[in-house]
């Protein structure tokens, strides 16, 4: 293990390390800790200039309640869910199929198609912006959740195909051959042999896509405009306009907006990291 395991080092370094750890963490998360403290302060603290002193009273519950009752925040959150969840499902369906096709079968244009997906996944959003916006307008899906969902599914298919295909490649191919010898139809191989084996990869991909889509801001701004369809990342700017310099509200709002992917991460940590680091080791 590198660096040298702490238990094999001198006593003094062990103590230094143990005390350095929490200190470093606090420094690292300082901006967030500040926002968390802001979000439980009463409004009066900001008017009296008590930004960094102890809160004069605990208003956490009031502030967070206000986020949910006095603004469009619940609606934006709902929109975010209604955009994110269908996208994740769509991506799972499409990319498990493309990944299966590219991972299992050998045909001439296999690598070419694979690279098309990979390359498309890297392009800057701006090169797609105007045509995608036009297309969405023409389909009558501008400012709808559906418009965003369709685009997100399509775009994420690039990344997800890369993910799925590499995972399927790593599966033992003998399984598929054995199934073929048994005379099992190809689509049944997909459904009954490969798909069950893909479960951990699908879970990892689902949490990743959930986070990506939840946190998307650019497409939300390009394809939606009002509280009807806007997800929380775009909605928070209107929220901020509504509350101006009420920093306790802005902080509480930001925390609420950031929370679902954070919760997802902590609940599905193993899958999340497995997905993110796929390919980081060989």
């Amino acid at each position, binding site marked *: 293990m*590198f660096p040298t395991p702490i238990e094999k080092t001198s006593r003094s370094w062990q103590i230094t390390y143990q005390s350095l750890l929490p200190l470093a963490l606090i420094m690292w998360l300082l*901006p967030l800790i500040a926002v968390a403290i802001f979000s439980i302060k009463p409004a009066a603290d900001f008017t009296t200039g008590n930004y*960094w002193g102890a809160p004069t009273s605990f208003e956490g519950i009031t502030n967070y309640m206000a986020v949910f009752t006095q603004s469009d925040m619940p609606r934006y959150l709902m929109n975010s869910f209604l955009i994110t969840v269908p996208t994740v499902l769509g991506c799972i369906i499409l990319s498990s*199929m493309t990944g299966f096709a590219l991972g299992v079968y050998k045909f001439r244009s296999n690598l070419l198609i694979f690279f098309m997906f990979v390359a498309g996944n890297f392009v800057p959003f701006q090169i797609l912006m105007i045509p995608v916006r036009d*297309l969405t307008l023409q389909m009558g899906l501008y400012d709808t959740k559906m418009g965003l969902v369709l685009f997100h599914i399509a775009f994420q298919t690039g990344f997800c195909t890369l993910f799925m295909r590499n995972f399927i490649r790593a599966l033992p191919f003998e399984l598929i051959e054995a199934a073929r010898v048994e005379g099992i139809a190809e689509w049944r191989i997909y459904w009954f042999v490969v798909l069950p084996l893909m479960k951990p990869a699908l879970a990892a991909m689902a949490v990743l896509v959930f986070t990506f889509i939840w946190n998307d801001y650019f497409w939300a701004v390009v394809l939606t405009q009002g509280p009807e369809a806007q997800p929380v990342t775009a909605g928070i700017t209107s929220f901020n306009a509504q509350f101006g310099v009420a920093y306790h509200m802005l902080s509480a709002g930001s925390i609420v907006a950031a929370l679902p992917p954070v919760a997802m991460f902590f609940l599905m940590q193993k899958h999340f990291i497995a997905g993110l680091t796929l390919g980081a080791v060989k």
Partner: protein
Amino acid sequence: MTVATVPDMNPPRRKSFYKRNEIALTPWLFLTPGILFFAVYVIIPIFQSFNLSLYAWDGLGEARYVGMANYQELMTDRAFEVSLWNNVKWLAFYLLAIPAGLFIALFLNQTVVGIRLYKSLFFFPFVISQVVVGLVFAWFYNPSFGLLNTALGWIGLGPINVLGDPTMVTYGIIAAGLWPQTAYCMILYLTGLNAVDPEQIEAGRLDGAKGFRMLWHIILPQLKPATFICFVVTIIGALRSFDLISIMTNGGPFGSSRVLSFYMFEKALSEYGFRMGYGAAIAVVLFLIMLVFIAYFLWSMFREERGH
């Protein structure tokens, strides 16, 4: 005369076309929906944007063909130059996330009590949306009450208005972007470090390699796959930077924090007028910059595939 063959009264039932070509057809059936979606929303729009960059179009009326005029205008556009230059800064400084991530990963690669929680909490900034990161850092930099200036005040410095100063603003935003990006690289390196071969480390120790020499000659070569992915995601992230700029400064002050992605959006969609063709031309330039990196990534992947 040839004897007419009597047709077999009981021919083996002919397999359907699909059944006969099952192995050849199945991948295409499985690929069709994915390719269709991807073509409509990603591949075709790239070409449409290229085409549109040769037109003047306000998004509503008739598009007018202007040839290379949009690109000629770019050559003399000061705002474009500033954006392009800022993109270079983003590319250069965003890469700091890689050594920083490695440093934190080395710091956390221990087995003390609670280290798992520490690792998760260090990774935390990556999970938060860039919009929130932008808001948080905008407050952090706030000249009247921000934590940065409060801290500077304690040591008798400041106040500085990071986001209000055209010379500092881009660096300020990059610093905010480095926060989640470093966390990302950290997690990649932590996974990489987990897989480092302990025997090689022991052999290195016996040979007297320690500290930095050990890191450089024995550890880093084994972390190559992690470094490659860090490099890919950081480059892409740098060229995609949009959210932070939009949230923290909206391109200001005086357009000094714009990058190509933001300037394109501004030209095409925001109050500066719907100049779709001009926006498309900016997007094409950004795309071509990205293409250099994409080509390199694909080439690396291709070699990898061949190696198998």
